[in-house]
């Protein structure tokens, strides 16, 4: 179990759309890779070789550097049995750990409940994105849902500060608990006040922030910067969640995939540089995952939905290296034309839950799964 003096923090960066495993962590010495990827295969000379068997996509230079420093774990062949190749359904499964039924509670919502059972800190979990991710949902657990940290808050369309303050004050009074209100009104009251207090707590983050790191001008870098600002403001947030969309590369993958990874790698480099500058990196790890990998054979322009994928965990506390087995590309080993998952994602979650966040994994992931020991 990894230990740090400061409370361990988890950042999840969801790669939405189904990131292509084969072109991200490339089995360049496997002749089947070239056979199956005549059009979409990454040119040999460009691949960033990590060892004799695999290399990274050329756009992932910054992340490759982290691997070489021993700070990145590559988790091979993650997935679950009977892969669903639907974006939303598969993502739901990753969020709720319920492959067979309709889950409504997220693994990190449940984890937040364990970390802060009395809701002493309503910004324990922070979600960056216009909607709340199901991974963070658990009835009664407050989650701060931020889209733009600079403008986050209630009634932010009221520009005049003094006027807004007056209205928010009035808002708080109308939402105050009152004897005789029914349960739904009480719930509305509590939720409204939490939303307001959460916004009040978080708004100091950009105000307190100074840094020498210049983040790239991309949406993902902006999100990670927001996360950094909240983390560095010392507000006690333990779980951050954001996503980057666009990985559904059915067509034109050679043009699109490199840009996605360039933006993501750069943003992650900015993020960890920023944290390191403030001596706040050692107790933070970042998980990158996607809802499924993509088909082994390309479709002439891109790749279609697959099954087994790759995940990464990055951080000072991570025992760098490769975990699990690269699934076989041989046709007889594939599952319906896709890489057969070799490691259940719930084992990956279990490692993070138990060995990082210090909460019991079994009730959250609903079972016992093989834990890759990257922590």
């Amino acid at each position, binding site marked *: 179990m990894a230990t740090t003096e400061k409370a361990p923090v988890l950042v999840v960066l969801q790669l939405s759309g189904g990131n292509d495993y084969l072109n991200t962590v490339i089995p360049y010495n496997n002749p089947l890779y070239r056979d199956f990827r005549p059009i979409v295969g990454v040119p040999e000379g460009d691949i960033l070789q990590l060892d004799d068997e695999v290399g990274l996509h050329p756009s992932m230079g910054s992340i490759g550097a982290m691997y070489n420093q021993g700070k990145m774990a590559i988790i091979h062949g993650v997935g679950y049995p009977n892969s669903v190749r*639907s*974006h*939303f*359904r598969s993502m*739901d499964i990753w969020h709720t750990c319920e492959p067979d039924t*309709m889950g*409504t509670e997220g693994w990190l919502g449940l984890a937040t409940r364990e970390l802060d059972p009395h809701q002493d800190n*309503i910004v324990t979990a922070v*979600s960056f994105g*216009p*909607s*709340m991710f199901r991974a963070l*949902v658990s009835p009664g657990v*407050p*989650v*701060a*849902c931020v889209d733009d940290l600079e403008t986050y808050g*209630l*009634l*932010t*369309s*009221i520009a005049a500060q003094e*006027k807004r303050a*007056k*209205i928010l004050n*009035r*808002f708080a*009074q*109308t*939402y105050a608990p*009152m004897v005789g209100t029914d349960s*739904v*009104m009480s*719930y*509305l*009251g509590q*939720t*409204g006040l*939490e*939303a307001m207090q*959460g*916004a009040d707590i978080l708004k100091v983050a950009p105000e307190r922030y100074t840094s020498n790191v210049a983040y790239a001008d991309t949406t993902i870098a902006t999100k990670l910067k927001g996360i950094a600002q909240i983390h560095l403001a010392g507000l006690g947030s333990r779980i951050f969640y954001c996503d980057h969309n666009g990985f*559904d590369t*059915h*067509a034109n993958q050679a043009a699109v995939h490199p840009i996605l990874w360039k933006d993501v790698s750069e943003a992650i480099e900015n993020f960890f540089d920023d944290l390191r500058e403030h001596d706040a990196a050692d107790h933070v790890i970042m998980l990158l995952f996607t809802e499924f990998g993509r088909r082994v054979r390309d479709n002439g*322009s891109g790749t279609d939905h697959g099954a087994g994928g790759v995940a990464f965990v990055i951080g000072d506390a991570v025992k760098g290296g490769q975990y699990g087995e690269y699934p076989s590309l041989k046709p007889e080993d594939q599952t319906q034309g896709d890489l057969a998952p070799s490691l259940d994602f719930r084992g990956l979650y279990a490692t993070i839950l138990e060995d990082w966040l210090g909460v019991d994994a079994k009730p959250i992931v609903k079972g016992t799964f093989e834990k890759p020991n990257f922590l």
Partner: protein
Amino acid sequence: MAHEDIALMAHLMRRAGFGASREELEARAAKGYEATVEELLHPAAEPVDRYAFLRYHPGFWKPITSPGMGSAAWFHTLLNTQRPLEEKMVLFWHQVFATGQSKVDHWHELIAQVDMFRERGMGNYRDLLVELAKNPAMIYWLDNCDNHSRAVNENWGRELLELFSMGVGNYSETDVREASRAFTGWTIAMAPPRGYYNRWDWEFEYIEEDHDDSEKTFLGHTGRFNGEDIIDIVCQQPATAQFLARHLYNFFVADEVQVPAWQVTPPRDPEAVETLAQAFTASQYDIRSVLRVLFLSDFFKNARFARIKSPAEVVVGILRLAGGAEFPAPGIGNLAKQPSYMGQDLLNPPSVEGWHTGSEWINSGTLMKRINFAADVLGDIDRPGIRAMVERIKAQGDLSPEAFVDRCLDLIGPLQVRPETRQQLVDHAREEGTLSWGVEQDAEISRMRVGEMLQLIASLREFQYC
């Protein structure tokens, strides 16, 4: 015109539609409540022209895969329709027969499905079910294209009984199987595979050779049933009348517990549900007849503010009230995504069970989105609907803080608030004194104060109800 007439009409229009301006409320109240209910059931207005939207957004014709693109066309109809109950029923059936883009991955077919709900949603329920069974999006969604006489797939057969008609506990696993067998061969005609940037239209096809024509025993009846026969038997079941009645109660009258709990939790008003169920059976499954009974009933008229608005009702209601969003300006795609930020991604429900409704629409993220959206729109005093409200307030001359607050609550609804809440609003208004219009500067300030008061009202807990 009596205030209670307006209040009752506002209640009807919020439930049977998406609210109404004061002008519309007065016009409808003048015609009378019963006449209005009839007009809602048989609307006279022309339907919204889909091409009024498409000519400005040709890219939304058979849109491809981006979120929000598919529902923009429907959103335009929601904002513009003058046949509100018909459109409310589209939302109703979309919730009950929840079919989602996440798997169907074919916006055109989902739009065609809701178009079918618009055409048939207030007609005969039995005919609607048959159309649903033949609907390509539904066939794909519930895998009936994989339902073969030699390899039965029970997904559609099960959900037809569990979610679309009778509800859990009213049939056996054998019934599910037999129903599924009856629907073998009900499939989608072969279509070319998808292109990179297009999808081909789907058509229903009945493949006789793939249909299991042999004898089946379903809910105690025996015969060589085909799909329509199953639907006929299902419609005859008292459980179907009860289940549908409860759904209509939940959607139009007052929030019930979530559907999965219906097997173990009785309705909050069993008599009301029974009344609606009887209307269903007596009319031979005519939805209009049930709706008529519902809207004319006392249990409906008395159920003021007994539901938490769905995100669609929040967004569409506020935009229709404030005005200015009728024309499909650039950005309508973004507007169409607003309900998804509040938890309701139209045409993409999380599963065939639809959304969790009532208080479960609310969490700290969605509540903030609802409040911010409402405040953003209602604080924009240049919008036509807001200007109309300001004019009505101005026409009353100078107003005391109490009168000012009451006038705003009246025009935004009328909205009922608790005495403590009203007192807070009055205290807020009192800080700036009388609302006066005499001098131009005063009028300018007063206009802003009206906008601000509407924003404050939109942020209230009470405003989350309808």
